[in-house]
């Protein structure tokens, strides 16, 4: 596994430093111009839009170009079309890394969204799986819905112009119930989403219907926390002994807890007062992973 710096900065430098430089006529600046135009054109203006803007303002292009510089700040808040962004990123990958033998996972703080067939609007996503796969850290906070009372409180206090203080207070009191920006639990959650990318890469379904599995596609923060963050987990990764999810009640000293209740479209009520099982993959996906590792002896670590 190779950990690299910011994706676009890394590949721009790589292209510029290769012999001969892998850049279009006009050099690295021309490549940056092309990229910044494309990136600005992937911004989604409104949730109900049918696609990204494609017609960015000059200043939006200029901002994207500045963001291609090393060390530049990249505040988030705009929604980028996840599939478009994936295509732009893929266009920068060198030929030798574009095969199935390589898995690229891009962690970004930018918000990603997709509008799937049959959907009437864009939805923010934590990850967009493909080649490369994109995982959004801001998406972990913003995409899965927070507890209902957060929105009720926020709306009522915003009407009084007190949204800011209320948000901070609420986050402090109820922070354990949802991920916030710079949340220390985010790193652990990111591992689970990286696993989804791995499963997609090996040709399996990237998501799982089991709420206790790392591959569960969470729509609520409580689901995300239940699937990805359940307390101290030594050596989170693909090792079977760490990855297995024990049967209810099989954890030492734990009693079988009530089954989580979930009705489509409503916030799940997961038990919070019982010991939750160790984090990991469900048995079905663990077996799938084992089979794949046997057929493709690749040393893999997260």
């Amino acid at each position, binding site marked *: 596994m190779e950990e690299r710096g910011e994706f676009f900065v890394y590949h721009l430098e790589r292209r510029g430093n290769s012999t001969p430089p892998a850049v279009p006529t006009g050099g690295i600046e021309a490549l940056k111009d092309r990229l910044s135009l494309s990136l600005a054109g992937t911004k989604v203006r409104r949730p109900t839009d049918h696609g990204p803007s494609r017609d960015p303002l000059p200043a939006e292009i200029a901002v994207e170009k500045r963001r291609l510089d090393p060390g530049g700040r990249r505040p*988030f808040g705009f929604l980028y079309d996840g599939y478009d962004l994936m295509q732009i990123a893929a266009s920068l990958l060198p030929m030798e890394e574009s095969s199935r033998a390589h898995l690229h996972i891009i962690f970004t703080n930018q918000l990603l969204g997709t509008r799937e067939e049959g959907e009437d609007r864009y939805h923010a996503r934590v990850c967009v799986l493909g080649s490369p796969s994109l995982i959004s850290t801001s998406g972990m906070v913003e995409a899965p819905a927070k507890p209902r009372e957060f929105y009720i409180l926020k709306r009522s206090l915003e009407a009084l112009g007190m*949204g800011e203080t209320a948000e901070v207070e609420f986050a402090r009191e109820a922070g354990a119930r949802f991920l916030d920006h710079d949340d220390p639990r985010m790193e652990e959650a990111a591992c689970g989403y990286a696993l989804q990318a791995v499963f997609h890469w090996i040709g399996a379904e990237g998501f799982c219907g089991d709420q206790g599995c790392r591959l569960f596609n969470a729509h609520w923060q409580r689901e995300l926390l239940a699937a990805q963050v359940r307390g101290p987990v030594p050596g989170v990764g693909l090792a079977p002994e760490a990855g297995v999810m024990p049967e209810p009640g099989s954890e030492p000293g734990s009693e079988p807890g009530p089954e989580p209740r979930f009705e489509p479209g409503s916030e799940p009520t997961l038990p919070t007062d019982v010991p939750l099982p160790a984090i990991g993959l469900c048995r079905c996906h663990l077996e799938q992973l084992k089979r794949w590792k046997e057929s493709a002896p690749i040393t893999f670590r997260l």
Partner: protein
Amino acid sequence: MTLFHPVSEKDVTRAIVSGFMKQFEQYVESDLVIIGAGPSGLMAGRELALRGRKVLIVERNNYLGGGFWIGGYLMNKVTLRAPSQEVLDELGIPYEEAVEGLYVADGPHACSKLIAAACDAGVKFANMTIFEDIVIRDQRVAGVVINWTPITSLPRQITCVDPVALECTLVIDATGHDACVVSKLEERGMMKTVGFGAMWVERSEDLVVEYTGEAYPGLIVAGMAVSTTYGVPRMGPTFGGMLLSGKKAAEEALKILEGIKTA
């Protein structure tokens, strides 16, 4: 014997008229005209004037400060998030930490100090003055057309008051959500705006600061006008973002002015 020196009414009138006219004539041409005397406009004006630039701020109201006097629910406490408390330190505005990273200050104290800081730096004001139009020269914004605010509240048929124009090297649109200058350019088909952005995130102060800059040759957008121009997600009364956006607008303006000077 009276406490105050005796002066005639005509002397008072003469002092007002000559003082106003002298300044008005001087500022018919300036380095920068800032439209809007809210926190971002005042901050930008102060920074630029401190660096020796000739700055005029046009404000449609009689009072300066925009919404910086009060926070939510007409309560006169304003909140700012780190690191914008550094601006409060710079201006000598007292504040307290409400929770970690969130600071609260007295609106009247903060606002009056900011206004005073802009005045002390040398900013001049045309209050009770509305922005009506832009002056375009060589494909650049090169000035603004202004008029008295009160004429807007009089019946149209009796207010055929022609405006006047001011020339400048740069204009800063700090008119808040209205983005008056940007909207005028859009009305003329000279630029596009995105309009209010969708509420993707809970706040987006960082984006407002990042997107503060030249939106059209000769026009810099600052403060909440940035939101309207680029569709930055809406946010609450976050004054820190306004102050830092004002600072960034000044930095961008200085770069452009230096570029024009060396060209």
